[in-house]
């Protein structure tokens, strides 16, 4: 069994490597994530929530797999899970994520494997050679890419509702704008007046700003049968009108599976460190913290959504760039995985267990530094070994139950 050391791979791929670069640029396979907002246009601050949502980056433990459309709108409170699933299917999002994996040119249908090679950390020329030669190793690499990369593509749909502190739990749809705006239901318009959302009213309101976020998780359905269909009928590295049209007409064959959902607690967010002349930052912080918490909850509930993080040092202490944003607590336990490559396939072998050192958990939540949170300046969480053999930098850790 060939030992496939990510650390050495990083050295091989980089022209010049130093210790600082290793710490900063650990390469490992990540799941891919596309994040959408369902915006309640009847809510106060819906515009600001949309603006700030669009600034929230995909968490760094995932590959950014966003598509062009990031926001869809609704105009009243309702249960939307089925409607969202229907939206995902109706708009063929599964096919678009597949197209993104193969860098499909929407105008000509041409595809390539560059992103697969990049995100899969393959040696680019070896990958091309094996594939072109149709060797068993090449086939295994393709299957491996399917299982470990393409199949780990997720869609997160975040339905954000503003909780008006003045109204408590009442839905905003029943609230008339006090400045003369017209309620959408009465006129058939989708949007109430924004006249209430002046900067002054925003600041006055913002101190009790709360949002509730209902996050629904979907996973790309990708298996050997689907992969074979794609490669045979739709993949072409040259312009091919027939294959282009075939893909357009069969987008529905690529689906997203509903995995599950979580709802945030809607708790108050501390606005320490934010000036009153930056109300938009308060909104951003409230939204981003809630989204991050939902992602952590989803990871706990659904194993396939869990993230891995690299061990960046083992001497004098074991550290990894993972922290409270990923839900690390003193009760967390992580398995340590050695990444092995065999005949073109990546395998993760458990070699031990670690746990965080209390007081050494990195607070990497959004704006933790500005808040003056304890642990915000650690840069990484320190772990101690619970069991296992010698670890080395480049191994991965993943939270266990």
């Amino acid at each position, binding site marked *: 069994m060939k030992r496939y050391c990510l650390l050495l791979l990083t050295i091989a791929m980089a022209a010049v490597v130093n210790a600082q670069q290793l710490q900063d640029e650990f390469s490992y396979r990540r799941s891919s994530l596309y994040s959408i907002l369902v915006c309640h246009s009847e809510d106060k601050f819906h515009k600001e929530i*949309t603006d700030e949502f669009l600034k929230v980056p995909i968490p760094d433990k995932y590959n950014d797999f966003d598509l062009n*459309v990031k926001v*869809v709108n609704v105009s009243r409170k309702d249960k939307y899970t089925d409607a969202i699933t229907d939206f995902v299917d109706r708009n063929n999002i599964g096919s678009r994520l597949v197209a993104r994996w193969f860098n499909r*040119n929407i105008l*000509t249908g041409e595809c390539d494997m560059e992103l697969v090679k990049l995100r899969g950390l393959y040696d680019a020329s070896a990958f091309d050679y094996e594939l072109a030669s149709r060797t068993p190793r090449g086939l295994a690499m393709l299957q491996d890419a399917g299982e470990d990369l393409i199949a780990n593509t997720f869609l997160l749909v975040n339905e954000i509702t503003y909780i008006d502190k003045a109204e408590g739990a009442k839905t905003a749809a029943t609230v008339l704008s006090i400045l003369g705006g017209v309620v959408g239901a009465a006129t058939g318009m989708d949007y109430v007046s924004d006249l209430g959302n002046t900067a002054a009213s925003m600041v006055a309101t913002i101190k009790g700003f709360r949002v509730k976020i209902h996050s629904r998780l979907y996973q790309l359905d990708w298996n050997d049968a689907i992969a074979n269909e794609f490669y045979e009928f739709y993949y072409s590295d040259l312009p091919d009108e027939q294959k282009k049209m075939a893909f357009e007409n069969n987008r529905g064959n690529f689906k997203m599976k509903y995995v599950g959902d979580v709802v945030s607690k809607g708790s108050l967010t501390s606005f320490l460190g934010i000036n009153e002349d930056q109300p938009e930052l308060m909104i951003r912080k409230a939204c981003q913290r809630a989204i991050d918490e939902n992602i952590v909850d989803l990871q706990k509930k659904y194993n396939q959504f869990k993230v891995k993080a690299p061990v960046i040092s083992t001497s004098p202490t074991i550290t990894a760039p993972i922290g409270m944003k990923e839900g690390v607590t003193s009760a967390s336990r992580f398995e340590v995985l050695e990444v092995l490559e065999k005949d073109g396939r990546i395998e993760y072998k458990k070699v031990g267990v670690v746990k965080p050192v209390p007081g050494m958990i990195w607070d990497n939540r959004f704006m933790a530094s500005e808040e003056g949170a304890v642990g915000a300046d650690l840069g990484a969480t320190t772990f101690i070994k619970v069991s296992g053999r010698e670890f080395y930098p480049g191994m991965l850790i993943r939270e266990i139950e």
Partner: protein
Amino acid sequence: MKKIIASLIFTIIFTTSYAQLIPDVNNKDKWGFVDSLGNVVVKHKYNSVTPFVNGRAKVQKGDNYGIIDEMGVEVLKTSYRIIEDYNGKCYKVASGGKIKDGVLFDENWGFISYDGEVILAPQYSKIGDFIDGVAYVQSKNKYGFITEDLSVLVPCIYSAVGLFNEYGYVWVNKGGRLDSENSTQVTGGKYGVYNKRGEVVVPVEYAVVATFKLKEPTQYTQKELKKMSSMVKRVREDEGSYRFLERNNEMMRLFGKLDMSVSYDFFVSTRADGSNNGVIASDGTILVPVNMFDAVAGVEEGFAPVYNSSRRLNYWNVSQGELLSSAWYADGTSFQNGLAICRNKSGDYFFIDQNNKVVSPHYSYISPMKEDVYIVQSKVDNKMGLLDKYGNVVVEPIYAPIYPTTEGGLFGAFESETGLGGYINNKGEVVIPFRYVRGSSFKNGYSMVKRDSHWGVVNLQGQEIVECKWDDILAPQDTSVNRIWVKNADLWYCVDLKTGTLAFDKGYETMSNYSRFAPMLACVLVDGKAGLIDVNGDVIIPFILDNNVSVVKEAYAMLMNTGRAKWTDVDTYRFALKNNKNRHKSKLYQTIDETMWDY
């Protein structure tokens, strides 16, 4: 270990250059010098040392520095705060002051010789760098200058000073102050001027001292322009500046330089607003005394235009010390080649000589001189002609009009009988025949001209480098591109100015000039969508963008950021999608149009 490494480093670096003495540190972290055999030559008693250069080394004790010779004798006692490197003549040193948080305050600077003799005792809070043999000095908020031999050139008694300019003059101010908000601007006090021999050429007794500059081109008001005929307006737009030296209004700033590039004389006034000024020459001669006239312009050819309280103009004869004329003119210029242009209260323009004799007819207009000639307009029939710089007729007023071009020494002129235009030189010779109904000024060696009803381009030799067969033409913005857009029917085409032929065959419904939005690229529209092409017509950004300037500029900026030479269709398509304002307006129950998706 540290000691071994330090000694090794010094040995390696300095063995080849200076074999005699090597800096050495002992186990108490004290420095001295040893010879190549390791024998102590200078005892280890210093906090730090520098290697010997030219027989001298700098040593430190506590917060002070000194200089020792190779015997270890302190040529300069370790009593100086700072000792700068030997400049070949002496050491610049600082002494006194106090150190707070590692920063030295209130020290005094001076100079010590190689042998430790005090040449200039430390007495200045600042000594500037020597520039052309002179450095400013500052002591207790007063300024002066010293020379390189360290003698006083300008005493250190002034509240503010400039710096010596390339002509060897510097202004000084006594009693003024530096603006606290902008600490280089000087207000109040009295000004004067020194030369580089340390002589006062302008006594330090004037509220204003300034230099002269050329008058800017006249800015005509809208009311004035409306009154002009189109012919005259065309000439006035490009007329340039009349010869006239007015006060250079730049504020006095600490260490600013006097700009004497136009005149070597000085504008002086005892009044803070500069009124009732006089003129002093750079040798100190009073050319026009102060408080004699309301305003005095710069002296040229021995005469200074002067104004009285009614804003009428006359000329002060400097050598005679008297006015040129008993009558005052409405306005006038400086003397140039023995002539001045004057205007009387009826609005007539004419030339006078230095005997106040009117030496030309009266004209309704005389232009500033260009290409050694004046454009004049007849009072009789408004036609235009040329006079040379001595007032002699080069071309009688037969053209309607004549206007100067921006380059090439040519004047555009129109025949009054035919209405056709051509170009003449300053001798009146026809260089480009009269066959055009319209023409532009020459720029980069060519002019756009219209013959019959079609446009083309001529060069300075009169050759039609682009044949006059186009319905419209657009003046290039970037003349380095050598391309010009011309129109035929509904499409714009690009012509290579060097060959006169089409640069590429494709025509476009709408386009912008090269380099208007991106260097060396033109933005064109195809089917209402914008893209960028290069000078050969190659598509750099395909025609997929919205017809919006900021989108085009942003796309170009992004292309540059990626370091790629061009974008493909899909690159541009994806960029355009990101800028689509509607991409976040879809509804949950909607099937989003395919044109909103990037994959």
